[in-house]
Structures are given as C-alpha cells and as structure tokens.
C-alpha cells in the first residue's frame, strides 16, 4: 500500500505541500521577515516591497509575516481538534462496537441525539456556554464531531469483530485491549484516514469562521480567520488583506481534500482499475 | 420465405483510452421470416452484445464494424433517430430481467401507453383498448387492473408476458428475445416458450432467441448459431447442431447437456413419475 501511495502523484504532491506549509508554520519565527505584532501606523497600507512582501495592514503590520505566523493557530488548532475528535470518537466507537449490549445502546442513543443537531449551531452554543477562548473552540469542535466518528468506527468494528483472526486471537488467550489495539484498529485505520483528511478541511474552515466572528482566536494573534475579520473593514482600501488569508485557506483546505480523495483511491481496490 | 436480417462480419471492440478488447469477431448469420434463429452460448460469449450492437444500443466506448442488412438498409450505418424509430415498432426486444426493466415509479399501463404514443398517433382510448387486448392475448386476466399496478406489485412471469405482449403489439418484423426464460421459474418458463412458439406460427414474425439453455432453444429455434468467446463456433439447423456439430465446443455443450437430461430422466423414472 505504501508503494501505491508513493506512485499516486496527487497524494504525493498534496502531502508535500501540507508538510511544507506545516514546516513554514513551525519555523515562522526564522522565516518571517518582520514581527507580526509590530505596528507601524505611519506605514499602513503600503504596497508590496522587499521588506513587506505583501504590504502592510491597517495597523502597519507586515501581512506576510502575519500569514506565516497564522499557519500555527490555523493548522495547529485543526490538528488538535482532529486528534481529540478521532480519539474520543474512536474510543466510543470501539467500545460500542466491540462490547455491544447496553454499552452500545447508551452510546448510540447519545450519538443519535448529537447527530440530530446541526453542527454549526452546536459549536456556537458550546462556545457561548463556555466562554470565548481558544480551548473552548477546540472543545466545541470535538464535542460536535466525535459522534460522527463514533458511528463510523462502530460500523467498521462490527464488520471486523467476527472475522476469523479476531476469534482466533481470543481463543489463544489475548486480552481484549490487545485485540482492540492490535487487530481492529489497523483494519479501520484506512477508512479513518480518508475521513480524517477530508474533515481537517472542515475543521480549518470552522475554526477560521469562529475567529472571523470574534468567537475564537482573538486579536492581535495572527490567525487567518481573524485577519479576515479585520480585513472586512478595510475592503476598499486594501483588498490584499482580504485576498491573502482567503486564498491561503482555500489552498490548504483544497490540498487536504485532494489528499483525502487520493487516499480513498489508493485504499479502495475497486477504484484502482480502468 | 424472405430474409429479414442479414449480418455479415459483425465485430465489436471495446476501446477505453489505451485499453482495447475484442468482444465480437466476424459474426455472420441471417434471420428469415417466420423462422427463429437461436443464439446459444455461455455467459460472456457475446450473445447479448450481438443484439445490442445491431440495434445501436451500445455506449460510445464500443466500436461496431461490419454490416447488418435489414430491408435493404445497413442498420449499422443508420442515424440514431432512424434506429430509435425502428426500435419498439419494427424491431422489438424482450429483455432478461423483467422485474427491473420497468421504471418503478410509473404504473405498468403508463409505460406501455407511452411506448405506443411514441410510435403511433392512436387516441388514448384506442391505446387503452389495445393494451387490454394484448394482455388478454397473453392470457393475463383482469387486464384493466393489471395496467394500474406498479411493476413491483407484479410477478416476474407476468411482467415477462407483458413485455412479450408489448413487443408484439405494433406488429414487428423482427423480435429479439434476450434470455427471456433465465430469470423466471420453470413452470412459467414453459408457458413463455409456448408464447414464442405461438408468435412464430400465428404472426410469422422473424425471431432471434438468445439463451444459454439448450432446452429452451430446442423448443423454439429452427436454426442455431453457437457463440464461444465472441466467435462463431457453429452454425446450422437445430437438427444439424444437435447431431452433427462440427466445433468441439458445441459438441461438448450438447454432450454435457444431454448427459444431464438423461440423468434427470432416469431419476424421475425411478421415482415413478412418467415424464417424457
């Protein structure tokens, strides 16, 4: 399977792009030409120059540097969200699918209620409830999305739990947790990988939307959604402020979508031919 | 006894990008008025493809070459619109899975009527009375009620007979039956085969009967074309094929089939029932 991954041009390109962006984000302090927080009112709305590659914003800060620093909250928070969502969802799904009985019933009822709510509203409600800060943004997203994964993983577990290799493993006396971790998890991992890469895009958009509305990452921290919020007011005078973060979001989310599609092609044998 | 359809050097190739596969290779046969040609072969031998190729029903990826002369015209060279007008009226077809061939969202009567509306300018009342007549001819009782039913409410055998009835409704010159007995149970199979025999005798329609079942073909066909993996394995009258088959594949087919039938007969005789 790794060979197929390496051969698939789309998967390789998008992965390289994403890793590159993550790299830039991590090494932003070294790569950014200016301090993203330093204001220089006299120099506001300057055009592209060598010291300010994308010009400056309404407070005279370097847009390019803010973009680079902005990778951190955008990607970082999204990654944390996904970890939390998949972690909680996987745990619940595995428990429900593997042990069945009343554990399954309770978990699935909760999942049903969670899924009948619109995710957007729930995120807002949770943020409203817990207060406006970054942790709550992550918590809200995890709270909303785990149910989806729980259901998916439960379906996957149900498919595999009665397979021969699981029964055999139990026969020779392996502990339940061992079976869960070593046998079932890798089987469903591939489906999870596809879903996760498509969902990271959703997470990025969601986090940036919250920041845009002022409910997530607060000013003056550079984050692409928050930057767009500030850009809203200066649309006529400095459109670059609005275009740059937006295009960045589109590129990164598209990369994740393409990666998800490519992964699906790699992992699904039927799609491979013709 | 005139020739209704004459096919020469019919070939079909599947072309998808760089991938090319030969489906049918140089098929020749002819069909005569009042006679039935049986096309015999295993699954994948290209039987259905032959019929679809002649009627222009294959998607773009399939390249068709050769000649199919029908009433002086080469079907393979006709425009889509001309072919469409002939389908359902002059050349009709009965398909394999009657349960899935009708649109599940429309009543059966509507679908039959829409076919007639396309090919004729009969009034609504005339269409309705003809449809009831057709159902009667097919020995379906309460034709009026049946027309109001949805496809999923009728059995496979009944839908098959309705299909045959529709195929004969506009008095076609050529009727093609693609595995009409495959998807229905044995008892109904017999009555369906009887229908085909009746059609041949009463209406003098030319027929092509496609099947993998030697038994079914034996009841209806006068001539037999045996296909094996897209190529003609044997061709001749039914009697010739049965007793003097030239191709080893055909001989094998007949031998095995005869052996099965023999075993079956012996088993039944032992059981005490006198089946011929």
């Amino acid at each position: 399977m790794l060979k197929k991954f390496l051969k698939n041009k789309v998967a390789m390109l998008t992965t390289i792009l994403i890793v590159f962006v993550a790299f830039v984000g991590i090494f932003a302090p070294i790569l950014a030409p200016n301090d993203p927080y330093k204001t220089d009112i006299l120099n506001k709305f300057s055009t592209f120059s060598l010291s300010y590659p994308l010009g400056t914003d309404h407070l005279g800060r370097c847009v390019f540097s803010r973009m680079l620093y902005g990778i951190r909250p955008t990607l970082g928070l999204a990654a944390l969200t996904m970890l939390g969502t998949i972690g909680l969802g996987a745990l619940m799904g595995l428990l429900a699918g593997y042990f069945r009985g009343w554990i399954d019933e309770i978990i699935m009822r909760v999942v049903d209620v969670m899924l009948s709510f619109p995710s957007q509203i729930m995120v807002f409600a949770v943020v409203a409830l817990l207060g406006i800060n970054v942790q709550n943004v992550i918590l809200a997203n995890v709270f909303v999305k785990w149910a989806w994964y729980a259901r998916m993983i439960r379906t996957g577990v149900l498919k595999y739990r009665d397979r021969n290799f699981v029964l055999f493993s139990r026969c020779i006396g392996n502990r339940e947790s061992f079976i869960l971790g070593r046998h079932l998890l890798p089987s469903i991992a591939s489906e999870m990988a596809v879903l996760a890469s498509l969902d990271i895009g959703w997470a990025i958009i969601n986090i940036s939307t919250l920041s845009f509305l002022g409910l997530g990452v607060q000013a003056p921290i550079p984050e692409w959604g928050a930057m767009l919020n500030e850009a809203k007011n200066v649309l006529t005078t400095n459109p670059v402020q609005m275009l740059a973060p937006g295009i960045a979001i589109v590129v990164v989310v598209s990369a994740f979508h393409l990666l998800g599609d490519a992964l699906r092609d790699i992992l699904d044998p039927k799609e491979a031919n013709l | 006894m005139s020739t209704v359809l004459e096919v020469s050097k019919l070939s079909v190739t599947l072309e998808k990008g760089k991938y090319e596969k030969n489906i049918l290779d140089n098929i020749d046969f002819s069909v005569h008025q009042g006679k039935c040609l049986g096309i015999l072969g295993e699954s994948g031998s290209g039987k259905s493809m032959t019929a679809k190729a002649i009627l222009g029903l294959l998607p773009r990826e399939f390249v068709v070459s050769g000649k199919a002369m029908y009433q002086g015209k080469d079907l393979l060279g006709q425009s889509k619109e001309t072919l469409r007008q002939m389908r359902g009226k002059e050349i009709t077809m009965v398909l394999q899975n009657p349960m899935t061939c009708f649109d599940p969202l429309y009543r059966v009567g509507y679908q039959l009527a829409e076919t007639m509306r396309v090919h004729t300018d009969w009034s609504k009342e005339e269409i309705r009375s003809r449809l009831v007549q057709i159902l009667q001819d097919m020995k379906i009782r309460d034709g009026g009620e049946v027309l109001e039913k949805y496809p999923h409410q009728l059995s496979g055998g009944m839908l098959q007979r309705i299909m045959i009835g529709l195929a004969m409704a506009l008095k076609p010159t050529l009727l093609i039956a693609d595995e009409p007995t495959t998807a229905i149970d044995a008892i109904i199979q017999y009555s369906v085969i009887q229908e085909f025999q009746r059609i041949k005798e009463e209406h003098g329609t030319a027929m092509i009967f496609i099947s993998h079942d030697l038994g079914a073909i034996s009841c209806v066909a006068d001539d037999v074309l045996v296909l094996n993996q897209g190529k003609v394995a044997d061709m001749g009258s039914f009697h010739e094929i049965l007793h003097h088959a030239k191709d080893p594949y055909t001989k094998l087919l007949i031998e095995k089939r005869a052996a099965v039938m023999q075993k079956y007969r012996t088993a039944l005789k032992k059981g005490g029932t006198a089946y011929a």
Partner: protein
Amino acid sequence: MKNYVIKRILAAIPLLLCISFVCFVFINLIPSDPAEVALRVRQVPVITEAAIAEVRAELGLDKPYLVRYVNWLIDCLQLDFGVSYTNPSRTVAGELVRCLPATLMLAGTSLVMVILLSLPIGFFCAVYKDSWFDRLTRGIIFMTTAMPAYWVGLLLMWFVSIQLDLLPTSGNGTWKHLILPAFTVSLTYISTYIRLIRNNMLENMKEDYVLYANVRGLPQKTILTKHILKNSMHTCIVAIGMSIPQLISGTIVVENVFAWPGLGTLCITSIFNRDYPVIQAYVLLIGVLFVVFNLLFDILQTLADPRLRNEVV
C-alpha cells in the same frame, strides 16, 4: 398509511424531549451563576447577596431541577421562552419573532436559488459527462467546497459591490440587498446538490429500465427527464428537505458579513452579551426544526415512492 405516520411522529417525540433537555441543561452548565451574570449584564453597580437572591427568585432558579425543567418545558410549549438577560423588558420570544422574517426571507431566497441552479446544472453535467462543461463545473465545485462562506461573501462584496458597483454592500432594504447574501448562503449547498444530482443520474443511467426504455424506442429527452431525472430526484427529496433548516441555521455567518438583521445576528450578539436565554431558545428552535423537517421529508419520500408506499400500507 396513517398508522405509519403516527408511529413516526411518536418515535420523534423522545428525540425532541432529549433535545429540549440538552438545551435546558445547557444554561445550567454555565461556569458562573446565571443570577450573577444577569446582574452583571444589566450593569447593576453593586452586587450584593440580597440582589443575587432576588434575581434568582425572579428567574426561578431556586426550585429543584426537575421541577424547573418541567416548568421550562411547559413554558416553551406555550412559546414563552423567558426574558432576555440583557434587556428584561424584552421577551425572548419577542426577539426571535422580530428577527425571524429577515432570516426566513434570506433562507427562502437561497433555497430557490439552490434548486433553480443545482437541478439544471447537475442534470447537464450528467448528460454531458466528461465534457468541458462537466469538468469545469466539477472544478468550480471543488474550489467552492474549500472556500469558507464568509470569504465568499467578502469576495463577492468586493467584486460586485465595490469594483463593479452593481449591488449594495450591506443592510436590508430592497430586493437588491438580498441578492448577494442569498447567493453566498446558497453557494455551499449548490455545490453539494450538483454533485448529488449528477451522481444519482449517472447511477440511474446504468439501470435496466433505461436500457428497456431505449429498446422500446423512447426518445432520449423523455428518458432523461421523465424517467432518469424523476428517479434521481426521489433520492434527493430528504436531502433537499433537510436543507431548509440547514439554510436557516447557516445564515449566521453571512448575516454577519452583510449586516443582515436576522436570527444569526441576534445569536452572535447574544453570545457576546452572554444573553443565555436567547441562545438557548435559538438552539432549541433549530434543533426542533431539524427533527420536524427530517420527519416530514422522510414521510414525504416514503409517500412518493410506490414501492415503499405499498409496503407501509
């Protein structure tokens, strides 16, 4: 048939109760004391114990949990959602009603746009599969799914309102104000439905009844519209129906961008003001709408499909 409908409605009731319970619990999970918060929001200068106790009694917070839940539920059924924390003179129900028409107008127009645009485009993408039109559309759809709705709004605002000066940028006055926000809201759903209809049609094209229709000599137009499209639409009914509550809840962001005075703006303002009763009522409203519309269109789909309809009768 009636039995089926009644059974489905009865099955939905526990779900509605659950949702209402979650909403009720919601307010009581706030880290801080709602009475204190209310006082702070009302900008009472000195917060004494007595004042808190008074407000608690006023808001009914001193009674046992279950009693409060039942009382609250009964009030909700009578459409009494309490008063706003920020402005006790205004009832929550009143606020919702004030802002609802604007949102309904926006959501309604978006729905119309979605249906008018996605149906024909999806149809032609399927009919002319892999043509330049199909590929172009799929490319645009791909891009649109990666764009956050608010950025699309900003982009449109910049391009259409400012550069081309064709439409106003914000506010709510004439029909001209409606176009950009409605289009922004509908864009996400248009992409989804174009894809849905295209895929449904392509799958239906492979079905046996299409082959038989061709065998019978029906013209392509009839086959495509009367048979393939109708079958494809059937599977979309629930999806399209569910988009109505989704559109209503999805206007939040766009209302913010275009300063459209609807429920979304109300919700955001309430979040900033910590006006919990309003938020609670909004979430409850949307949750109920979701369940109701899901139920409604599920039943409609069963009714519309003869195979399911007869099973059920």
